């Protein structure tokens, strides 16, 4: 048995190594730790031309970071994880990008289709579903890993695929959506995510977008190809769908629609739904018990968004090109336009703080986000942003249909 002599480094080397370690450790301890913070006052602004998003903070009314590398963001939309930490950004080019709002960086990205239009997240937060124009259909992804779990083509009997519009989350990992060409409404159940089950309903001619009411009970699809909307009572699915507001255009020649309206649950307030008419410069008012028309309000141009302030007292309306520099405010008590504002050029989107005291508006052609006080209708803030479009606050994480 031989004894191996262990050779230690000379003391001089140890001296150097040890002092180096001490220096490194002390350097670490002097780096301030990232301050703890919540995400309830965070959000995302889409900079559509540059494939970037701005991570914003509503408390300080400012920008925390700009994150790039998200692809073609024309018509991009966003949903949030249940904890409000991650934003899932759906790009036009089929890109699905997961952004960490605290670390302010991309933590996952897949390009899942040729041409996409938006997405949704399941009530339990486990599934992100994307709606695609090309190839027409929906796809379900694991919200943690962005792994593809299911591909559900929007195919009809003749073998053709339709563009999918109006995707919304329902209870129990179900999603509802409409098929533009086929004029159908479908519900796909992802309870077993890799083996989805789909139910089909009649829709109407050329559904262009849809909404689920904030309580999750009704689904309403707007129709481009006919005067009316399709309604499904989700508590009574056996009754199928029915038409509401049929013939609201009264057979008159429709005015040109230079931009399709957008529908979401924000249009429901105080037992009424405020819906943009198609080809008429009107907001239609519907009773949400009877689904009968109870009024219509003349507005400046073709409405795009008719959004209720979260307290339901006002509806803010923006307009299609070439009148997209205007915003009108409707008082829901009197049913009249009370304010006509010009917040900037190219107002593409509005987003209210969850209690409604502020609204953020994107002024694409001024390269600015402007912030208005909803009580005084005065601008109280804003910041530069390159060609901003959608503005999305994390408070959406808590709402059905967002």
């Amino acid at each position, binding site marked *: 048995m031989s004894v191996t002599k262990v050779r230690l480094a000379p003391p001089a080397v140890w001296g150097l190594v040890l002092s180096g370690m001490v220096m490194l450790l002390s350097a670490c301890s002097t780096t301030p730790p990232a301050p703890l913070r919540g995400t309830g006052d965070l959000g995302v602004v889409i900079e559509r031309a540059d494939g970037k998003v701005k991570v914003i903070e509503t408390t300080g009314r400012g920008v925390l970071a700009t994150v790039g590398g998200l692809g073609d963001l024309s018509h991009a939309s966003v949903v949030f994880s249940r904890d409000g930490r991650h934003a899932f950004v759906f790009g036009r080019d089929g890109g699905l990008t997961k952004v960490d709002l605290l670390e302010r960086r991309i933590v996952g990205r897949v390009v899942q289709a040729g*041409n996409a239009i938006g997405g949704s997240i399941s009530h339990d937060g486990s599934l992100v579903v994307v709606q695609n124009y090309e190839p027409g259909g929906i796809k379900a992804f694991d919200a943690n890993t962005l792994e593809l779990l299911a591909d559900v083509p929007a195919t009809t009997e003749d073998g053709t695929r339709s563009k999918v519009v109006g995707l919304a989350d329902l209870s129990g990992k179900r999603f509802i959506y409409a098929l533009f060409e086929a004029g159908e409404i479908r519900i796909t159940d992802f309870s077993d995510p890799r083996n989805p089950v789909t139910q089909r309903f009649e829709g109407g001619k050329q559904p262009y977008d849809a909404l689920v009411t904030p309580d999750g009970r009704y689904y309403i699809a707007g129709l481009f190809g006919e005067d009316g909307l399709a309604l499904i009572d989700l508590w009574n699915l056996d009754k199928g769908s029915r038409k509401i507001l049929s013939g609201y255009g009264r057979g008159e020649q429709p005015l040109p629609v230079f931009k399709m309206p957008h529908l979401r649950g924000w249009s429901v307030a105080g037992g009424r739904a405020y819906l943009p008419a198609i080809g008429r410069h009107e907001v239609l008012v519907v009773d949400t018990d009877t689904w009968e028309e109870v009024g219509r309000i003349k507005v400046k141009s073709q409405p795009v968004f008719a959004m209720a302030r979260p307290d339901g007292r006002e509806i803010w309306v923006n307009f299609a090109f070439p009148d997209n520099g205007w915003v009108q405010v409707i008082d829901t008590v009197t049913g009249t336009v009370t304010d006509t504002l010009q917040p900037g050029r190219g107002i593409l989107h509005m987003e209210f703080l969850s209690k409604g005291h502020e609204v953020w508006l994107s002024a694409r*052609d001024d390269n600015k986000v402007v912030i208005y006080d909803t009580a005084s209708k005065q601008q109280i803030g804003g910041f530069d942003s390159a060609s901003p479009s959608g503005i999305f606050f994390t408070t959406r994480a808590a709402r059905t249909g967002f």
Partner: protein
Amino acid sequence: MKVPPLAAHVAVLIGAALISALASAAPQSPAPERARELVHIVRQDCGSCHGLTFKGGLGPALTPEALADKPAEGLVATIVGGRPGTPMPPFQTILSEAEAEWIVDQLMRGFPPDAGLPPASDAR
């Protein structure tokens, strides 16, 4: 030197043919400010249906490849008059036929990038 009458006629005919060929190959450009505005409208507002990169959306793709086999007159007519039964609206209240011809020509060549609108004057 006296030019023979036949040669003169031929020269005039060839010249006229050349001029009309050139004219149809390249529609007249609008004034620079209007051109900038049209590029912005097409990129941004047509782009809301056709995509900012014209790869399509609710409306079809408008890339040079996608338009290659389509006659220009039909495309101009679609811009000016819309396409009934589809969401494509008529743009006759927004631009002239000559401007639509220029837009179609630019689309078929590969559309220029958007420089945005000029900054708003303080007089807004």
